[in-house]
């Protein structure tokens, strides 16, 4: 492939070899290490580049709950499709939401049956559609952590400023810290450290992770999204462990400021407030873990505009997404993995997004490492 600046530097195989050797040196013989990468973007990088080939057998990566598509409960997908079925509605959504199943249909299925759900790349695109279609009601399916919440909030502010009254958002934004806390409190999990989310931290900064080191004694290193970033992060966690330290460190300082982005936080705070509780797929109800639109912006809030059924749909019995999201089960250990639940016919959300642990494992890693490495040895 053609060399590309700002990308290839972070994918250099020679540097990876050198880091891998240092990682191996730091591992105490006989000790097993389990690190959780919180963010789905990291899961994707790990599988896409085959990063696990560089890790010693004693290091296991556990895939965390940071895939925004994966944590949306089925009832909310049903509600979104309900909105899309109302007269004159154009629903808009990020691409990887399109194949997430509700209790019955996905957005793609709903479209085949007559709804108008369009893929957009940013909430501003949705606002543009609203301006182009003044006789339609345009709703943006807002999902994601603090990473995407500022752009949703900005779009609401712009709609208010420009008086685009046929635009609203269906707010499903969630917050990362309560989810990490829920995982740390789950009794069946043993972790040695965290590969901290990178994009979220550009907004919230590194301070909110302090409780993880103080109360739970786990080191956390905020990591970038290129494969060398992640290898270096694993190295940094191992250095902390070997020196008996337990701190929040920032590997991704080229992008993440220690204090986060105060303006972005301000914009979120202007438009949204914490919900008392919110249901997470597989993890259940977590208090103060999601955002809703403030009263002042009620006219842009699809939840208030449309009379939502809001029916809670229990996760399918066979689905073990919760255990996978908490890192208790490896994707392949789920009862339905790869047989009833595949990327073609996903039962659980982890199988839908390419960032979902199950989809990543199924698409990229679905073979014992030894066999794959055997085949690619030239």
């Amino acid at each position: 492939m053609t060399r590309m600046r700002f990308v290839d530097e972070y994918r250099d195989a020679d540097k990876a070899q050198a880091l891998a050797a240092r990682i191996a040196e730091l591992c105490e013989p006989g000790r097993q290490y389990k690190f959780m990468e919180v963010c789905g973007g990291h899961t994707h990088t790990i599988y896409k580049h085959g990063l696990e080939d560089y890790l010693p057998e004693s290091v296991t990566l556990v895939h965390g709950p940071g895939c925004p598509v994966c944590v949306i409960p089925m009832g909310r997908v049903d509600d979104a499709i309900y909105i899309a079925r109302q007269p004159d509605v154009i629903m808009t959504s990020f691409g990887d939401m399109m194949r997430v199943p509700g209790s019955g249909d996905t957005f793609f299925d709903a479209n085949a049956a007559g709804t108008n759900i369009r893929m957009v790349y940013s909430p501003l695109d949705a606002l543009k559609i609203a301006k182009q279609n003044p006789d339609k009601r345009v709703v943006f399916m807002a999902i994601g952590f603090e990473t995407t919440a500022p752009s949703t909030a900005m779009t609401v502010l712009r709609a208010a400023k420009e008086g685009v009254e046929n635009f609203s958002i269906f707010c499903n934004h969630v917050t990362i810290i309560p989810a990490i806390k829920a995982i740390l409190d789950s009794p069946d999990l043993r972790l040695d450290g965290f590969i901290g989310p990178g994009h979220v931290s550009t907004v919230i900064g590194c301070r909110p992770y302090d409780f993880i080191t103080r109360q739970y004694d786990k080191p956390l290193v905020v990591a970038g999204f290129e494969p060398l970033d992640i290898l270096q992060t694993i190295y940094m966690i191992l250095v902390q462990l070997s020196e008996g330290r337990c701190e929040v460190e920032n590997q991704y300082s080229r992008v993440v400021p220690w204090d986060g982005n105060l303006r972005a936080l301000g914009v979120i705070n202007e438009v949204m407030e914490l919900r008392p509780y919110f249901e997470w797929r597989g993890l259940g109800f977590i208090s103060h873990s999601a955002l809703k639109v403030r009263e002042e912006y009620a006219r842009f809030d699809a939840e208030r505009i449309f009379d939502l059924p809001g029916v809670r749909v229990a996760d399918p019995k066979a689905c073990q997404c919760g255990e996978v999201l908490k890192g208790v089960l490896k994707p392949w250990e789920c009862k339905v993995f790869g047989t009833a639940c595949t990327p073609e016919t996903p039962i659980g959300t982890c199988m839908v997004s390419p960032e979902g642990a199950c989809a990543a494992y199924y698409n990229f890693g679905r073979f014992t490492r030894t066999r794959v490495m055997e085949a690619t040895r030239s």
Partner: protein
Amino acid sequence: MTSVDDRERQVLERIDKARRRRAKIKDERITLAHGAGGKATHTLIEAVFLEAFRNPLLEPLEDQAVLSLGGPRLAFTTDSFVVHPLFFPGGDIGELAVNGTVNDLAMSGARPRYLSSGFIVEEGLPTEDLVRIAESMARAAEAAGVQIVTGDTKVVERGKADGCYINTAGVGVISHDLTLGASRARPGDVVLVSGPIGDHGITIMLARGELDIEADLTSDTAPLADLVDRLLAAAPGVRCLRDATRGGVATVLNEVARASDVAVVLDERAVPVRTEVRGASEILGIDPLYVACEGRFIAVVAPEDADAALDALRTHPQGTEAAVIGQVKADPPSLVLLKTEFGGTRIVDVLVGDPLPRIC
């Protein structure tokens, strides 16, 4: 007690078995995924069309059927074109409709000869646009050495076709006696690509104007029969040719791996991808291996002919950037593997539908 490795192996074997089962279509309605060239398309073709039409000529599911009517062998194929927008940098729907069918014929090593063309035109399309499309088809036909000898026109109500849809069918004559096919790859064979991948797909995505990304990029649409002629003359050890259209190189190579029950091992560093295509793919979170080309093919070639094949491609103006991108191995069967530029390994599976952009 069984070890973790053993349990994982058992699970993976169960999945492998499930994947080999006969395709069954479970969806209640047709969705866009069924047209994207990935798993959903395969399921639809196998469960609906192959089930209904089953015969030995259709069964290999090649890009074209090879027929014998007494004289020389004939290649016969059809393809429909629904691209939006109708005009894009480097081409238009008309040129695509000629080259697409010409290339499906060329992949059997046939000399394309005659095409048909069916138009489904939406009420309201500017006549000027239709004239432009027809003229473009005429130019493309001349360049490819084919004649458009029969056709059909239908006009449908406004809103029922996206400006204009075109179907073309084509016939070509096979004058060599090689047998090419996706099931003929053997361990040890070498995999080549005729040029940089993904230009067409990314050009179209950008031309739709939804992304606010601009790049100096044009579609790679081109007739490939000439290049194929050159290749087959220089390297009779060619086992299989496939143009990497819908679903891209990844999908095509998966078809080869499955039909031949072999592993295809790719080297990411060797795959030619233009910087613009890589850049746009990085931004969108999609993989160029799945992006459509309209003027590139992959060739699986016996090892002793690999050098001659590469040389034949590179000395033709359409193949100057051709490259060896991988190898065929015996194990693990039916899979495409990638040695990443980072130095790791992973599977390259067929996607369900279109590659979906990731949110963050």
